[in-house]
C-alpha cells in the first residue's frame, strides 16, 4: 500500500514535470534534431544568433503574455513596432551620440505606452473586448506610422544608435542582453509582485478579483501600457538592427508573439502563463525558423512545415497532459 502510494507519488512527480516543462523538452528535441542535421547548429554563435532573431518578437510575446493572462489579447503589437520604429528613426536620423540614442529608445517606448494606454482605457473603462480594441489600434497605429513617415523608410544609421543592434557585451549581442533584462524584470513582476498576482487574479476570475479588492481597471491599464511599451522597445531594437525605421515593420508579428505565448502554455482563457515558458515558446519558433532556413527548405514548404510544427508542438503537449 505504501509502496503503491510512493510509486504513485513518483508518477505524479513525473507527470507534473512533463506538464510544466513539456515544451522545454520539445524545444530541446527540436534543437537536438537540427543540430544533428546541420553542422554548427549547436554552436554558441548560432545560439546567440537565434536568440538575437528571437529577441524582438520575444519581448513582444512577454507583453502579450501579460495581456493574455488577464484574459485579454493584444493584436496591435506589430503595428506598434512599426510606429515606434518610425518615431525612433526620425529622432536619430542625421544625428549622432548616445544621448540621442537613449532618447530615441525612450521615445519609441513612450509611443508604445501611449498606444497601450489607449488599448487599456478602451478595454478597461469602455468594457469592449480587447480583441476589437487592439484590432482597431493595429489599423490606426499602422496608419499613423505611414502618416509620420510618409510611407517611406527613415534612415537610422547613426553609429551610436546602430551599435545597440550591432554591438555585443562580452560576446553577447546587445539585443540579447536587452531581451534577458526585460525577461528577468517581467518574470519578477509577474511571479513575485502583487501586480502580477492581480494580473492572474483578473484572468482567473474577474469578479473574485474585484471582491478581493483588486483595482481591475488600473491593473488592466498597466498591463496594456506594459505590452505597448515592450512593443515600442522591440520597434526601437529592430530599427537599430535594420538601420532604419519603416512603416511596414512588424507585419504579423503579433501573431508570432501570441503563438509564442500560447506554445509556452499561456491559456487564452486567462489565468495561466509564465515568462520563462513564453521564452521557450519564442525559442521554439526561432529555432524552427532558423533550422528550416539553414536546411534550405523551399519557402512554400517552410510555411506548411511551420504551421505543422506549431500545431504539432501544442498538440503533443496537450496529449501528454491528457495521458497524465
Amino acid at each position, binding site marked *: 500500500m505504501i509502496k503503491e*502510494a510512493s510509486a*504513485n*507519488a513518483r508518477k*505524479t512527480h513525473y*507527470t*507534473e514535470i512533463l506538464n510544466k516543462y513539456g515544451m522545454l523538452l520539445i524545444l530541446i528535441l527540436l534543437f537536438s534534431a537540427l543540430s544533428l542535421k546541420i553542422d554548427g547548429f549547436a554552436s554558441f554563435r548560432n545560439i546567440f544568433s537565434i536568440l538575437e532573431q528571437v529577441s524582438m518578437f520575444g519581448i513582444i510575446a512577454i507583453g502579450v503574455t501579460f495581456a493574455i493572462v488577464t484574459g485579454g489579447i493584444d493584436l496591435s503589437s506589430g503595428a506598434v513596432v512599426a510606429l515606434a520604429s518610425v518615431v525612433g528613426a526620425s529622432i536619430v536620423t542625421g544625428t549622432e551620440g548616445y544621448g540621442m540614442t537613449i532618447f530615441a529608445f525612450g521615445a519609441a517606448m513612450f509611443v508604445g505606452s501611449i498606444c497601450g494606454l489607449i488599448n487599456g482605457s478602451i478595454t478597461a473603462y469602455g468594457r469592449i473586448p480587447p480583441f476589437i480594441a487592439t484590432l482597431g489600434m493595429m489599423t490606426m497605429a499602422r496608419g499613423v506610422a505611414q502618416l509620420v513617415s510618409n510611407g517611406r523608410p527613415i534612415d537610422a544609421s547613426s553609429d551610436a544608435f546602430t551599435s545597440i543592434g550591432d554591438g555585443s557585451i562580452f560576446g553577447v549581442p546587445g539585443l540579447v542582453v536587452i531581451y534577458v533584462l526585460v525577461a528577468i524584470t517581467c518574470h*519578477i513582476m509577474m511571479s*513575485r*509582485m*502583487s501586480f502580477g*498576482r492581480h494580473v*492572474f*487574479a483578473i484572468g*482567473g*476570475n474577474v*469578479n*473574485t*478579483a*474585484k*471582491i*478581493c*479588492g*483588486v*483595482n481591475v481597471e488600473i491593473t488592466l491599464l498597466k498591463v496594456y501600457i506594459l505590452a505597448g511599451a515592450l512593443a515600442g522597445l522591440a520597434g526601437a531594437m529592430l530599427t537599430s538592427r535594420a538601420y532604419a525605421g519603416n512603416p511596414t515593420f512588424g507585419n504579423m508579428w503579433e501573431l508570432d508573439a501570441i503563438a509564442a505565448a500560447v506554445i509556452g502554455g499561456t*491559456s487564452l482563457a486567462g*489565468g*495561466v502563463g509564465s515568462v520563462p515558458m513564453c521564452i521557450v515558446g519564442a525559442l521554439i519558433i526561432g529555432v524552427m525558423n532558423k533550422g528550416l532556413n539553414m536546411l534550405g527548405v523551399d519557402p512554400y514548404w517552410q510555411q506548411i512545415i511551420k504551421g505543422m510544427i506549431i500545431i504539432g508542438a501544442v498538440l503533443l503537449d496537450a496529449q501528454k497532459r491528457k495521458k*497524465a
Partner: protein
Amino acid sequence: MTLMTNSDCILEMINVSKTFPGVKALDKVNLSIRKGSIHALMGENGAGKSTLMKILYGLYTPDAGGEIFFDGKPFNPKAPIDAIHTGLAMVPQEISPSANLSVAANFYLGREIKKGILMDQSAMNEKTNDILKELGIPMSVETLMQNVSVAKAQLLAIATAVSYDAKLIIMDEPTTALTESEVHQLYRIVKKVQERGIAIIYISHKLGEVFELSDEVSVIRDGEYIGTKKTTDITKEELINMMVGRDMDEMFQREDVIIGETLLEVRNLSLPGKFHDINFSVRKGEIFGIAGLVGAGRSEVVEALFGYKPAESGEIHLHGKKIEIHKPCDAIKHRIGFVTEDRKLTGLMLNMSVTDNMIMPELLPYEKHHLISEELARDVANSMKDQLRIKTPTVETIIGNLSGGNQQKVLIARWLLLEPEILILDEPTKGIDIGAKAEIYKLIVELARLGKAIIIVSSEMLELLSLSDRIMVMAEGREVGIVDRDNATQEVILEMAAGGDVPSQEEQELESEYQTQGVA
C-alpha cells in the same frame, strides 16, 4: 462478496476506484441501489461522493479493476450520452445551465424535439410548460436562463432530470441553493418521482433531509466504502459516527460572548430596485443574522455594504465615523471581509492554487523586499489548511480539483487571513459537511469573542437561530424588523419573512392560469 447481480438492484458498483494525480479519491467502493428506492449517500467533504457519481455518469473513467452493473447488465459509460441512453439522469453538484439559452431550450438540450430538420420550438415550450406545471414550478419557459434565480435553476435542473425517461436519478446536493419552502417543494417532487418506480441517489449533508426522504443510506469516508443501512434502522448519532469515524455532538451549543460598543452602523441604505432604507448596527462581539426568503435582497445588502455593488444612497458608519465604501478595496482597507454566496461566480479562481486563492485580498504580509515570498504564503496557507482541516494534497493544488465543501473552506480561510474587524458571511456553510460546519461555527464564535463583528446571511433557519445574537428579517428588499435572540423562533421569522412575500406579477399570472385550469 458474490459477483452475481442482484435482480432487486437497479445499480451495483463493485470495487470501484479512482485515482487523480496525487489523490486516491475512491478506493474499492461498493454501492447497490435497489429499484425504486431513495438511497442517500453521505460522507464528509472530499469523501468522494461526487467523484463516484461522475464515474456513473461517464464524466470520469474509473481505475481498472472495478465493475458496474446497471439493471443487471455491465455498464461502462464513456460519456454522459451513454449514461442517458442507459437510463440515468443527474443533477450535478455545481449546476451551471447555459445562461444564454431559454428555460425550454435548456430543458430539451441534447434531445430537441424536431419537426423535419427544424426544431419544433413551440412543442418544446409547451411540453416544458406542462412538466413544470405538473411538478409545481411555475415559470415562463421562454425566459433566458441568466434571468432565473439560482434556486429556480436548481429546481429546473431537477425537473429536467426527472423528465428524462430515467430509471435512476442522481441528485448531488440538490438543496444547497434552496430555502425551506423550496426544499419542501423538492421533497414533493422526489416523492412523486419515486412513485413512478424511479430510483434516486440522494447526496446531502443535511441529516434531516436524509431521514425524511431516504429508504437506505450509504456512507463513504476518505474514498472508502463504510457501509449501507436502512434509514429506519439507524440513529443520527450512529450515522454521524459512520461518517466521521468518531462520536460527535451534532447540536451546536453557542456560548455567550461579551458584547461591546457599536462597531458598524448602517443608515438608510438604498439601492433602487434591490433594497430600500436598510438600518441596522452591529456591535463588537456580536453575531448579526439576516434572514429572508430567496430573493429578499439579503445578498444585495451585504454586497452593497462591501462595495461590490454599491448602494445609491445611505450612510455607513464605522467606529462612529462615516466612511465611504465605493469599491471592495475600500471595505478591505477598513478590514471588512466577505465570503460571497456564489462560489463559482465570485469566489473561486478555479485554475489557480489553493494558496493563491487564499492570500489574494491582502498580499502585503507576504512580501519581503517588495517581493512576494512563496514560502511565507505557503506556510500561512498550510496552517490554514490544518486549522480548517481542508482536504487537499498540497496547498499548491489547483483549487478546481478540490471537492465543493473544501473549496468553501478555502474561501473562508481567505477572509480569516485578513484578520477582519467585521466579517460578512453569505451562506457560509453551503455544501459543508456536519463536522466542518461545527468547526466553522466554533470559529465564528471565536472571532466574536475576539471582539469582531459578524454579519451572517443564511437560508438555514437553524444556523441563524443557533448562531445569531440578533436577526434582521428582510422581505422584498425591505427591512421587516430585527428580532433578539430571546424572541427569535422559526415561526416568528418565517412569518415576518413571508409578510412581505408578494409573488411577482408574472408568477401571479402563471399561478392564476394554473388555477383556472385546475392544476396547481
